[in-house]
């Protein structure tokens, strides 16, 4: 297969005619878009817009759910993810954080060391470095550094959410997908994580699904507006907020006049 010639050299992810169904119910239809390398790509939109489903399709989570089916193409670095043989290798390059945090029933340390261990890192010193770095980046280090051996599943909700962020980062992913990562996190800590994300842009591509329109405005380079399973509009984030948009529905949504 030849990558489409018109796609820019820096495309990290290319989505073509994506449609997602749960059973017979269509959740996403006809989404085509390109996400560039090293950008923060925001996705906003009301409930049931298909934002979470979109992320799930990228990580091929339909493999876990016989009810979910995906049509169309998602090219990751030019390779069709549906055709990838080594789906484990693919998922290792993609870090995901979902809104309901899942602290695995093991210690905080083991939670963050799991991905490197799965990838074959055995060296204790090396693991220590990774764990500390990821917990720092997820703004959790100061709170847990004295209890790395406590159970991850017993942390508070907000801490578990940051733990899942640390865990996603521990994969050293090319692509980081965050789905409403801040719902259980206080505003100050959220800002700290946002700053980290802006720095991480040097190393990876980030997709940020958020219900907080202002969060997209603060850190996303470009933002897409999803509505009822379709992508209504994609634009440089600032344009969405300064009225430089072509679609009335987008304007209504970002200005909070939706309903």
């Amino acid at each position, binding site marked *: 297969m030849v990558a489409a010639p018109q796609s820019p050299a820096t495309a990290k992810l290319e989505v073509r005619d994506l449609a997602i169904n749960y059973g017979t119910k269509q959740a996403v239809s006809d989404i085509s878009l390109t996400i560039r390398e090293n950008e923060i790509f925001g996705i906003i939109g009301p409930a049931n817009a298909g934002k979470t489903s979109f992320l799930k399709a990228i990580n091929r989570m339909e493999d876990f759910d016989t009810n979910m089916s995906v049509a169309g193409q998602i090219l990751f670095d030019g390779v069709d993810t549906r055709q990838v043989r080594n789906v*484990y290798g693919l998922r290792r390059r993609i870090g995901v954080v979902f809104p309901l945090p899942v602290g*695995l*029933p*093991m210690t905080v340390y083991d939670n963050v060391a*799991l991905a490197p261990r799965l990838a074959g890192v055995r060296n204790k010193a090396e693991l220590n470095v990774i764990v500390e770095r990821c917990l720092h980046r997820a703004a959790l280090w100061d709170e847990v550094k004295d209890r790395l051996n406590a159970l991850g599943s017993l942390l508070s909700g907000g801490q578990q959410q940051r733990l899942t962020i640390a865990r996603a980062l521990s994969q050293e992913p090319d692509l980081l997908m965050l789905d409403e990562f801040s719902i259980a996190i206080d505003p100050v800590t959220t800002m700290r994580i946002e700053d980290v994300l802006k720095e991480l842009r040097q190393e990876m591509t980030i997709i940020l699904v958020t219900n907080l329109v202002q969060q997209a405005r603060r850190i996303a380079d470009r933002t897409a507006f999803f509505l009822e399973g379709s992508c209504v509009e994609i634009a440089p984030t600032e344009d969405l907020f300064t009225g430089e948009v072509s679609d009335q529905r987008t304007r209504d949504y970002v200005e909070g006049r939706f309903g």
Partner: protein
Amino acid sequence: MFASSELNQRNRNRERVFRVLFGTMTALLVLPVIIILVTLVVKGGPVISVEFLFGNPTNGMTAGGIFPALLGTVWLVLVALLASVPLGVAAAIYLSEYAADNWFTRAINLAIINLAGVPSIVHALFGLGAFVVFFGLGTSILAASLTLAIMTLPVVIVATREALQAVPQSFREACWNMGATRWQTIHRVVLPNAITGVLTGVILEVSRTAGETAPIMFTGAAFFLPFLPQSVFDQTMALSLHLFVVSTQVPGMPEQLPFGVALVLIGIVLIMNSLSIALRMYLRGKKKW
């Protein structure tokens, strides 16, 4: 503000009635167990002695000890466990973690549950045909243990599968999302959290295995043997069969002796069960969510 209305009063009366009702039922259930245990201890207790536990039967089994039967039961249970636990756990892991949820898997699951209801005499005949005759193991500990293993496999599979399915799906998905393979997920997340449930299955199995008579009667347990088994290819005596024999087959048996045998049999089951319960409690103390 907290004055009780008529409705309130009625609900509280009803509450009392149900509490007493259910309590009585429970007591009625527990009562026979207590009566059995007390009878055994009172009548069988005096028989128990070092000589009884570690001696050979003498005088046509009307005197002496029960050591060959005691040892035989331990052998049978251990060999049966060695066969059925790895097999059963592997099958349960396959059914719960790998097999697609389709009509075929569901049919297999149904078959397993039904298998648990097959009478033990049927298993006995199967064991006789398959292990003793077809595989040429003869009547031996191995043949008897394998028969017991086949008989208890469904229990182990069902208990293990349920333990695996009690581990939240979200744990698996979190792990898969990081690029873990099925096996990595099972080995790092699912099994460590299901181990207590697996042990429950094993406990059930031990109790059942030690007490079974029919399946071993045709396949490896002997009426009376003057020597101890040297390997798994020998026949052996067993407590359950011995109990049957001394209770019904031997004239002139002292009245107390069968009670002593029964007490030892129950004692063995209790000891084996307490070991696994202790292990289970230890592991549950480390349970992580």
